[in-house]
């Protein structure tokens, strides 16, 4: 089966600009996650969707980050305006359902550099 797709793979922007990332999860996966991975750290959950509803966005900086998952399939994560500290790899993951025992499948990530 096809894996989690993300685009773009790389993005360089100046601070205060806006940027958007796209994710297409594995077909049939109801749960979708966005993570931020800063260099030298493990991934940190930003937001979790169950179908097209938000389950957890407690660690999403809502003053500048937004995400949506229309129709319960593809998802978009947006940053506006970007700050230097937003430089990171943004990972999308999906799983068949939101269960403690289910592993997540990750996309290749989008590497964002804010200058």
């Amino acid at each position, binding site marked *: 089966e096809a894996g*989690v797709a993300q685009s773009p793979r790389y993005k360089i922007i100046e601070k205060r600009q806006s940027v958007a990332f796209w994710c297409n999860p594995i077909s049939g996966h109801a749960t979708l*996650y966005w993570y931020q991975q800063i260099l*030298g*750290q*493990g*991934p*940190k*959950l930003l937001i*979790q969707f169950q179908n097209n509803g938000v*389950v*957890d966005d407690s660690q999403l900086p809502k003053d500048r980050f937004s995400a949506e998952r229309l129709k319960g399939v593809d998802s978009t994560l947006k940053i506006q305006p970007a700050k230097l500290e937003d430089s990171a790899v943004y*990972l999308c*993951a999906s799983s068949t359902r*939101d269960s*403690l*025992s289910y*592993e*997540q*499948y*990750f*996309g*290749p*990530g989008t590497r964002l550099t804010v200058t």
Partner: protein
Amino acid sequence: AQSVAQPEDQVNVAEGNPLTVKCTYSVSGNPYLFWYVQYPNRGLQFLLKYITGDNLVKGSYGFEAEFNKSQTSFHLKKPSALVSDSALYFCAVRGDLDYKLSFGAGTTVTVRA
């Protein structure tokens, strides 16, 4: 709050030797433990998980991990390392009182020929 500690930033072993990557965790309730591997410019790949049952869990590519409840550890092991095992390894935990998956900072494994 739940957390994961990977005490070694780097592990270096010779090909053919045993490989161990250490992980300890803190979680409320029962732990659900995972190991992922990350190759350069690629996303995380699932290796194995402990949910319940046998403390020794076997996973992909010859890896296994041992769950130790009293020591709150979940160390990753491979009896004979390969050069191709060189990568970044992450331990992660979820608790049945906090569904978020929390990751450690990662351990870089280098296997020399």
